[in-house]
């Protein structure tokens, strides 16, 4: 009987521990973010988005109802460094800037579309006032958005959803692909390399972000007359990227450019090229502006990374959520684009801005 009681107690304890732990994590994220919150806000304020936010805040001041609105935040996947960083920023801003006005419930969708649908269904069951979604697949969640419309739950998405109810604070992977392509073309044109060997490292094949980054980058290259020599996937992962790059080094005597769909992979590529003594003169570019990637750019290893202004993006979404819940008319802002930075060693101002962002978050080492 004692054993039975201990088992039931253990189950209860594990649940309680987990529940307590969830709270702690947010706190930890907040602690990390508080350090230089003022600096990060300052950085964000330099963007156009932040300027529009200021205007919006003025309009909201009048509509301040004093009510705390419940917001469901569906984080796409916390096992990935970039999405996890963005999720932490959401929670930090919610605590620091919106305490008493917004209660943000964050749930991890584990990069699984079905799991994301489950999470959104659960938010609806909890009667949240608005949902902010880092979307895995906009078409898959369309029925949920329709349900939110029927129930009057505001829906803010980071990708285009085919429903007039949804607001977009957009970070379009198409933009990432085009920016990658444009930068690669510019670099290759400047270097004037004949028949350059260009390698493209894909994210997880079938993933919408991976597909779009590849498609639109290659379109830009092809339009400029460049052909990608080889394409293969490393599934967003650094370990797979290292193995793939090691193999590519065996196949190609000359490698001029490696374009990666995310920073985790490009950092693996840089590591291999450095070990092989082939990094000098090779362009390695990617997307995400992770702390490690920004450091690598600062060290002159990674050529370029694209940074989505997370601080501004989170602020835009939370402000929009608050305005919509308060009844402020934001119909003119159905589509807002999150600003993106091209981070290179040549642009010291932008590079320093991102070093500051990561330093404030405690991730820059």
């Amino acid at each position: 009987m004692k054993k039975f009681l201990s088992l039931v107690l253990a189950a209860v304890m594990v649940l309680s521990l987990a529940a307590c732990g969830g709270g702690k994590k947010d706190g930890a994220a907040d602690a990390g973010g508080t350090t230089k919150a003022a600096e990060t806000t300052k950085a964000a304020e330099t963007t156009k988005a932040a300027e529009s936010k200021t205007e919006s805040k003025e309009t909201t001041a009048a509509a301040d109802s004093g009510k705390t609105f419940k917001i469901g935040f569906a984080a796409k996947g916390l096992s990935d460094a970039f999405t996890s960083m963005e999720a932490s920023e959401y929670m930090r801003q919610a605590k620091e800037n919106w305490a008493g006005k917004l209660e943000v419930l964050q749930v991890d969708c584990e990069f699984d579309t079905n799991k994301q649908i489950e999470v959104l269904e659960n938010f609806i069951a909890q009667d949240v006032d608005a949902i902010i979604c880092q979307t895995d697949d906009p078409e898959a969640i369309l029925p949920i958005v329709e349900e939110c419309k029927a129930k009057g739950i505001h829906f803010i998405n980071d990708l285009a959803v085919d429903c007039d109810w949804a607001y977009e604070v957009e970070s379009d992977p198409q933009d990432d692909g085009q920016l990658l392509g444009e930068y690669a073309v510019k670099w290759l044109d400047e270097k004037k390399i004949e028949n350059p060997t260009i390698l493209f490292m894909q994210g997880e094949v079938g993933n919408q972000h991976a597909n779009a980054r590849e498609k639109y980058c290659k379109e830009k290259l092809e339009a400029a007359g460049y052909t990608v020599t080889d394409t293969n996937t490393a599934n967003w992962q650094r370990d797979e990227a290292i193995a793939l790059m090691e193999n590519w080094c065996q196949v190609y005597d000359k490698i001029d450019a490696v374009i990666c769909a995310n920073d985790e992979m490009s950092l693996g590529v840089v590591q291999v090229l450095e070990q092989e003594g082939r990094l000098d003169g090779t362009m390695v570019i990617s997307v995400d502006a992770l702390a490690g990637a920004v450091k690598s750019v600062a060290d002159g290893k990674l050529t370029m990374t694209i940074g989505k202004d997370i601080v501004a993006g989170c602020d835009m979404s939370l402000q929009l959520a608050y305005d919509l819940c308060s009844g402020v008319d934001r119909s003119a802002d159905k589509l807002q684009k999150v600003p993106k930075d091209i981070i290179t060693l040549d642009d010291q101002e932008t590079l320093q801005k991102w070093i500051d962002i990561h330093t404030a978050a405690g991730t820059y080492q």
Partner: protein
Amino acid sequence: MNKTVDMKANKKTHIIQTIFKKYMIYILFIAIFAISSFASPAFLKVSNLVNILRQTAIYAIIAFPITMLIISGVTDLSPGSVAAFTGVAGIVAYVDLTTKMGVNAVLAGLLAVAYSILLGIIIGFVNGIIITRFKVPAFMATLAMMTSIRGAALLYTGGNVIYQIGDIAVLGKGSIIGIPIPVLIMLILFVFFTILLKKTMYGRYIYAIGGNEEAAVASGINVNKIRMISYIVQGAMGGLAGILLMCRLNTGQPTAGEGYEFDAITGAVLGGTSFTGGEGTMFGTLVGILIVGMINNIFNLLSVQSYYHQILKGVLIVVAVIIDMRGKNSKVTA
């Protein structure tokens, strides 16, 4: 005198252990249900309870045949990949039938479901052949199948997601008399598999093979044939789960279904299915799957990070296996 007292004490301990093992799953279910009810006011809402059922239906459809495999002493790691491949294939078939060949939506839907199930049956048959004829351990054979079929799903779609799947999506999203269609299918299959396992000769052979394979062979049971049927049934259910999953996702996703076999096996083992074979029930599996679903749900409602969730699932499965093993050992010593 002392020996008699010891024997009585041993017997009493054994009875308590047996009762504990038999009812542990239900106590756990009630405990989690009760804790969840207090932890979140949203938990007991009808819409949330329907959510739990809807969210567990596809896992249960995979878990029922897996229970039979585990009872007979083998397993299958490929259902998640099978669901992805058969699901996207069924969706492509439906889209082609309705848009290119002008087939009526209902007929096309039925044909697409049948096609997914047929593909699942073929995959199950191949699994069965590899395991029974070539004597490859089930774990390795189905692990290899899991990888190959995932690749086949990506190859089939060129790595792309299939959009505009049309009216077939109602299979995953629609309801009949307020009950979501996947839940209805799950309940029908629950009744079917319960009868299959408890009331048919095939079901009795499954228990006999898992209990003692050598004795089953000696008593004239065709073990290979029974295993082959079990893998074919598993494949068929993988196909059905696949098309329902794609309908629920409103898209054909070749990357979907990853890790579903793990949740299905977790549900079966939590529900009292013994990994050493010979024991398990469909009702136990259903309750086990619902426990996994409830934990997923309450952790979402409480905004608990998925890291804790994964730890807890691992802890639960280990605890369930330990209890199972202790029960077996105590039987031997008793």
